[in-house]
């Protein structure tokens, strides 16, 4: 059972994001004055980078300015029947914009028409901000229905500002206002804090640890959630905190997969069995079928812990998760960390010699692992449990 408690948003604990808040403020002003230029904003960013807090702060400001807001969290609809979910969402939007909650229609199309008929009247009186959280983590069976019956028509409304937040796989909307013509908030993603802001954050949220700001920044790269978790709970529990969206009963296994793969810059179904074999010290993993490896990959993607990366030409782990887990292994289980890098090094060497067409690519990966092992040689040499085999490339 995880003992980690994530910090809840409070205006007094909020730090920075002035640039993004200014953009939001400008859009809201345009909306209130009936000018063009509001439309659709997309807030993207890695886990823990501060999307939720920025959204909450924006909502807090809107409530102070008495601008009506409807917030929908698509996480609440995970695993639900998509048609039921959209019907429920339409009912909520209707109720929160002065329309009826019940008897909207016999099907989604009719419900949507009823909602928008009432919404037109609402918008004649006042503008509306609609915030949709966890959009891109949502099931691709839900999003097309949501687009057709709510988001697409909403995006066409002149007196609505739509803010879509999430991380992971960008959804290929059909509607240009939701894709081509939407503006990213934070260019193109919300960035982690720099060292100064990390310090400021810790002064607000974990003042007793603020003196460790530089050390923590070196571990987290300025990821605000990572900063807080490491400062308050330490590395091991910080990882547990980052895995909080994964159900308790699956968390152990998912964490093991992540530990096995964290040393890789990119992975795929070919690399998964090799790394699991090294991680568990069990060669039978190498016999895994492609389909079985794929289940691991799909599991990690499902929880937003990995995604396809066009530059790496493979799947990459969520940056902060990978960074903290690898650091955890490096400091707490150095022999395992070394074995994993060694395995990766050998695998890429093998691929480089077997596959001449892609040799350079795999040599580059092998070189990365060789350097990592060399870089941390002094640390490893202090560990008594490192085998001769594990040391041999150092």
């Amino acid at each position: 059972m995880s003992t980690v408690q994530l910090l809840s948003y409070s205006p007094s604990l909020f730090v920075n994001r002035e640039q993004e808040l200014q953009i939001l403020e400008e859009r809201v002003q345009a909306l209130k004055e009936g000018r063009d230029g509001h439309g659709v904003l997309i807030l993207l960013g890695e886990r823990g980078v501060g999307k939720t807090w920025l959204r909450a702060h924006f909502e807090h400001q809107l409530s102070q300015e008495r601008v009506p807001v409807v917030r929908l969290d698509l996480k609440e609809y995970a695993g639900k029947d998509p048609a039921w979910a959209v019907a429920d969402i339409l009912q909520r939007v209707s109720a929160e914009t002065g329309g009826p909650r019940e008897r909207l229609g016999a099907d989604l199309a009719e419900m949507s028409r009823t909602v928008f008929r009432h919404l037109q009247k609402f918008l004649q009186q006042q503008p509306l901000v609609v915030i949709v959280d966890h959009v891109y983590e949502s099931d691709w069976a839900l999003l097309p229905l949501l687009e057709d019956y709510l988001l697409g028509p909403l995006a066409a409304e002149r007196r609505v500002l739509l803010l879509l937040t999430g991380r992971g796989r960008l959804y290929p909307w059909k509607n240009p206002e939701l894709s081509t013509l939407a503006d990213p908030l934070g260019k193109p993603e919300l960035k982690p804090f720099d060292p100064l802001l990390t310090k400021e954050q810790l002064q607000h949220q974990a003042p007793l640890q603020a003196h460790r700001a530089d050390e923590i920044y070196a571990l987290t790269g300025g990821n605000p959630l990572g900063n807080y978790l490491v400062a308050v709970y330490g590395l091991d529990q910080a990882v547990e905190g980052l895995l909080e969206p994964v159900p308790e009963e699956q968390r152990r296994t998912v964490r093991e997969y992540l530990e096995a793969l964290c040393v890789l810059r990119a992975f795929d179904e070919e690399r998964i069995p090799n790394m699991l074999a090294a991680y568990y010290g069990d060669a039978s993993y190498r016999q895994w079928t492609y389909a079985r490896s794929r289940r691991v990959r799909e599991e990690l993607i499902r929880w937003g812990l990995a995604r396809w990366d066009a530059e790496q030409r493979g799947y990459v782990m969520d940056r902060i998760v990978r960074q903290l887990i690898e650091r955890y292994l490096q400091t707490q289980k150095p022999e395992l960390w070394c074995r994993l890098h060694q395995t990766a090094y050998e695998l890429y060497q093998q691929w480089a010699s077997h596959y001449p067409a892609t040799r350079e690519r795999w040599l580059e990966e092998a070189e990365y692992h060789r350097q990592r092992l060399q870089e941390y040689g002094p640390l490893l040499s202090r560990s008594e449990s490192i085998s001769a085999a594990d040391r041999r490339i150092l």
Partner: protein
Amino acid sequence: MASSTPTLYQMPDPSGVPEWLRWAGFRFDPFGPLDAAADPHLSEYLVGHEVFARVWGDGISWVFAPAGGGKTALRISVMQACWVGQETNRPFPIPYVPPFLAWGHARPSEEEHLMALARSGARVLFLAMAHRPHWFFRLGVSGRRDVAHLFYWNLPGPLPVYLNLCRQSRQISPLREALDPTFILRDPPDGVTLQQWCDELESALAGQPAPHPSERWAHLLAVLKMLGFPSIYILADGFDGAPETIDNPMMIVDCLRPLLYRAEKWAQERVFLKAFLPTETLPLLAEEFPLLLSDHVSVIHWTPDLLAEIIRRRVYVASGGNFGSLDAVASPALRDVEIVLARSVMPLPREMLVLTRRVIEEHVRREGTEGLLTGEDVEAAISQYTQEKGGP
């Protein structure tokens, strides 16, 4: 409305490809439909977003591309973007592919253009309204009569015939089959509502004789305005579809000219011409209509990177966002699959799709319906493709 260019390859779906795609984690075959109009996912895997952004919106716009270069795909994407939602608060799209066969020539007068535009607009509105009968039900008596006459005058066959098709089947599909099998709109009404629409539409008809073509066009615009559409997009495509125009850009300009003379006046009435034309017509049009072409001009130039992006985007959508390259389902011996293919193919999207599918077919032929793509699959597909194209 189908693609404006003929399908170059009518490939059967060889047994095994769908199975391999399923094995590899695809939700559907993204390389199958070579005719953009027949692809329900087209808008989802649009590449060249900056071109779309320039075309979309209230303004005259121009897209120039070679034959098979994605003009129709873009035109259909614009059309699909117009059909978002249940209401009439988006632009109304009139897909306009000149009816050369009906004209019997390629130098249409303004009158012939207007007649064809009115017909095309009426056909689209009829199909859209069959899906959205509430647009009709909320009209008063005279509004209903105007709509009924628009259909009566401009549909290719008698209105009662189409209405009977609906009544008999209690579905819209026969209507789509008869008028435009590629017309895609969500949420057709139930049988009872459809029946009611047919009855009320027919009863609104007063049987007035058809007026002059220019009046029919004006009538269409008035009806669309009455229904609440904020603007109208004329999506002109397929001007190189006649034997006289296929290799003759000047002839295309001649054909287009009556519309161009009207374009600016139309724009003042919120009717915006959006033309999708062969690249060769750009210098001719720019010389003759410099003001008209001073803005919103896009030229689609297919580089290997952009061609590779077509495949990556389709892979991404068809895999449910799980992966964005064939590299994910290729052996470690093979990387940058899309770029390898893009450098071996004629620089046209359709050709890129053909070659990609050929790689999978080769794989299935050699290895069966499972397993990662290999360098040999790619080499064999490229070799076969090159031979077919008359290469070495």
